[in-house]
């Protein structure tokens, strides 16, 4: 199986980001007893903004790191690597990581929004679905790290629950 661990990093980063940030928006907005369309509007707006900023952030960070690595290699080779296959690999990696982070973030965001899109939304259903998604991400994380799957799932779901509890305690929507 040709598995790129770098993509796994951005799938987890983006998905967790999208899931929990959007869940936070939904919990915050729904505390005010607003209509379904307002929750969907706020959550989708947040999801799109988050996907774009995550994608842009990954692009900028990866560009700095990968071109830095390329410069170090150029110094060792005593030649420039512009317009070579090596530079094209660097560019592809930056674009792939940027897209993976943005798309994962958006897909993650859709999980807590989905009940509201189907007009059956409530914060409890969104929290439940998000915890299931976090458990799947924990399983995936265990697969990548080749460590104990159960511990990865508990860690992922536990951290998600802490964030949900904190958002509820703060009650930012009131």
């Amino acid at each position, binding site marked *: 199986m040709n598995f790129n661990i770098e993509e796994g990093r951005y799938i987890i980063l983006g998905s967790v980001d999208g899931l929990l940030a959007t869940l936070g928006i939904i919990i915050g907005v729904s505390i005010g007893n607003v209509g379904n369309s307002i929750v969907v509007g706020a959550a989708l707006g947040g999801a799109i903004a988050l996907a774009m900023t995550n994608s842009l952030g990954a692009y900028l960070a990866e560009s700095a790191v990968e071109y830095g690595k390329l410069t*170090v*290699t150029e110094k*060792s*080779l*005593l030649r420039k*690597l512009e317009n*070579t*296959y*090596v530079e094209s*690999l660097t560019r592809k990696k930056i674009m792939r990581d940027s897209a993976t982070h943005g798309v994962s973030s958006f897909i993650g965001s859709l999980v807590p929004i989905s009940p509201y899109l189907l007009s059956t939304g409530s914060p409890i259903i969104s929290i439940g679905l998000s915890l299931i998604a976090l458990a799947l991400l924990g399983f995936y994380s265990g697969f990548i790290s080749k460590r104990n799957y159960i511990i990865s799932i508990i860690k992922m779901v536990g951290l998600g629950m802490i964030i949900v509890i904190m958002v509820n305690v703060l009650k930012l929507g009131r």
Partner: protein
Amino acid sequence: MIGNMAQIKRLVLDVLKPHEPTIIQLAHDLGDVDNVDGVNLSLYEVDQQTENVKITIEGSDISYNLVEHVIENLGGVVHSVDEIAAGKKIVEEEETLHDR
């Protein structure tokens, strides 16, 4: 006599290259060069950023420029041309008293 030069049959190069792409891809690309019958790449030194590879290429009429272009496109640098055989047939190096 330019324009009617003897055909290169064997080329041995010392190449410095980054770790990526691997020597497998370099071997594939060099093997695809026109008139190349076979290639042999052996890694003899690995550094933190780079690696040194000895490349042996045999063929009927090898174009050095094309070979160099493939190596440079994959990020490599030809350090030296260590051996070259040209003409109607490959002439092997003879051992002399100095080599004994």
